[in-house]
């Protein structure tokens, strides 16, 4: 079983949903990010989603766009992202790590060496926003062969006819994007999320994670009642950004502030059912 499947099996026994915080790798700089990352499991992260920064993040809103720009300015690369995961994994053997991003940096790196190095580093899953099932031969199938879960997004536009195509070849979990839109903008109504999760459950036994537009512990708790995992990204990135000085450098207390938010979200998720 993969680390992701193991974690969801444990959570199922505990009868609760997972909290999945998202942060962009190398934001605001590599050292601060690495410290932040190492504090996430203790703060209540059940899985961790790490963004691979890209110059042209088409599916992201202003918060995560800015996070990517900060990380790239500070010198983050795909190679360094893998090194940061490797260091994390050396100290934490259990918390699943999912890399999320866009295809071009991986394509440029080479899919085969990337998958080999990601596996060695301890990466458990990949979410590549701009690789739909129509291009599964590029990375999805090779990832499966390499023992890395390929996770896909389903959206409100993914109807029953298209859903089987989206579900084919994926493992780990299914990521339901609760809104039609980019990250960090509007929030979804919780009854529509419940309906959507029920529809997806009808088609798959995979755990369903829900993300996009979830900002507060209260919203996270509502989603945790109906979904298997709650992803929170832009709200944490905004907290991080609020703790930067005018040069974009980390102010004292940044790490504690972000981890406190993660802890509050975790509390919400754990109290939900």
């Amino acid at each position: 079983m993969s680390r992701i499947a193991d974690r969801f099996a444990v959570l199922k026994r505990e009868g609760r949903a997972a909290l999945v915080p998202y942060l962009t790798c190398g934001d605001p700089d590599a050292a601060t990010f690495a410290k932040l990352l190492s504090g996430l499991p203790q703060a209540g992260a059940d899985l961790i989603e790490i963004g691979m920064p890209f110059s042209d993040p088409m599916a992201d809103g202003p918060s995560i766009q800015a996070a990517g720009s900060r990380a790239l300015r500070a010198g983050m690369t795909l190679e360094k992202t893998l090194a940061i995961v490797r260091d994390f994994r050396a100290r934490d053997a259990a918390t699943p790590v999912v890399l999320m991003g866009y295809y071009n940096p991986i394509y440029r790196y080479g899919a085969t060496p990337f998958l080999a190095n990601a596996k060695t580093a301890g990466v458990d899953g990949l979410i590549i926003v701009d690789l739909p099932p129509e291009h599964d031969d590029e990375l999805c199938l090779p990832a499966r062969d390499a023992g890395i879960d390929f996770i896909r997004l389903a959206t409100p536009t993914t109807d029953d006819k298209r859903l089987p195509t989206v579900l084919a070849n994926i493992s780990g979990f299914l990521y339901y994007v609760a809104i039609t839109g980019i990250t960090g903008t509007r929030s979804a109504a919780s009854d529509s999320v419940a309906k959507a999760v029920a529809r997806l459950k009808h088609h798959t036994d995979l755990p369903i994670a829900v993300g996009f537009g979830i900002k507060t512990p209260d919203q996270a708790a509502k989603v945790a009642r109906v979904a298997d995992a709650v992803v929170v990204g832009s709200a944490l990135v905004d907290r991080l950004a609020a703790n930067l000085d005018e040069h974009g450098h980390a102010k004292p207390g940044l790490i504690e502030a972000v981890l406190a938010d993660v802890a509050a979200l975790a509390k919400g998720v754990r109290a939900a059912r």
Partner: protein
Amino acid sequence: MSQPNTYRAGPDERGLFGLYGGRFVAETLMPLILAVERAYDQARNDPGFARELNYYLEHYVGRPSPLYFAERLTRNWGGAKIYLKREDLNHTGAHKINNTMGQILLARRMGKRRIIAETGAGQHGVATATVCALFDIPCVVYMGAVDIERQQPNVFRMKLLGAEVRAVTSGTATLKDAMNEALRDWVANVDDTYYLIGTVAGPHPYPAMVRDFQCVIGEEVRAQMQRAEGRLPDTLMACVGGGSNAIGLFYPFLDEASVKMIGVEAAGEGIETGRHAASINGGAPGVLHGNRTYLLQDGDGQIIDTHSISAGLDYPGIGPEHAWLHDNQRIDYVAVRDDEALDAFQLLTRLEGIIPALESAHAIAEAGKRAPRLAADHLLVVNLSGRGDKDIYAVAKRLGVTL
């Protein structure tokens, strides 16, 4: 690489031209892309659609555009016989409206009630705002803040036409960022919005669809050259940013082995300076904006800043079909610097009384390099893709003139 039987079979059902093209978009957009593909397949097989499009191309756009024998330019260079395909004489002053007219009719058939577009130089934005005014459809145009600054006349034109121009400040604040922002808008407004892409790039079916709408250029050239000279042209030349005017001229001739074709990229201050926009001559294959093609990028796969005096060529990619035609060596892709384009801009203006767009001036400059070495009966067609009125402020600034 073995030569295909035809260069006109692509793309395949996945939208691929060999390695290039495809549909690299977020899942939210996939159902929309597939719907556009279905609607376009129906439309192009419907004689009623062609009739409607041809009506507007003739009576509104002003087609066919002339194929003009440039006698003084020919004499000046003392070699090949130079013909100019006068796309600058279309309504709105460029080839862009061939495509916007086709796509607006498609959007109407699909029942879409809102149009979004991206623009660099503003030519595609004006062409989109124009057809939206004609058919009374709300229009939002995304434009990089840097481009808004250097293309003020077109910004004002779009506003007069009733479009909302939204300044894009993210990234490098140019055409690629405008395209990112248009895609973000589309993801957020899937129900009623049609994304009217301006060049032969983006996810399938756009590269093929925009090409088809632009092919009227090459088809007219074939008939006009037959009337003028009784034969095929020998060389075709066009500037290439995304590459829609070039593919429109080239495509109908791709299987004519005797016809040589040259695409002219923007070398900016010179390829070796790194300040350019020549994706094929200075880039490598990658994936951006829904398709795989040659891109200007660094070793980590991050897209890098481009530079060209011409806002319309200032884009880090090129249409996927061009990438494929380059790899197959069917078309030569060369690059021309800012200063060379500026010289050609002034030369054509003085000799023929035609002010070309800075984009088109790149093709004129390349023609000037080759024409003197060619025989007097060599028929060289340059696509004059747009007129240069929009560029007079930028040119004046470069020449040190205050308007």
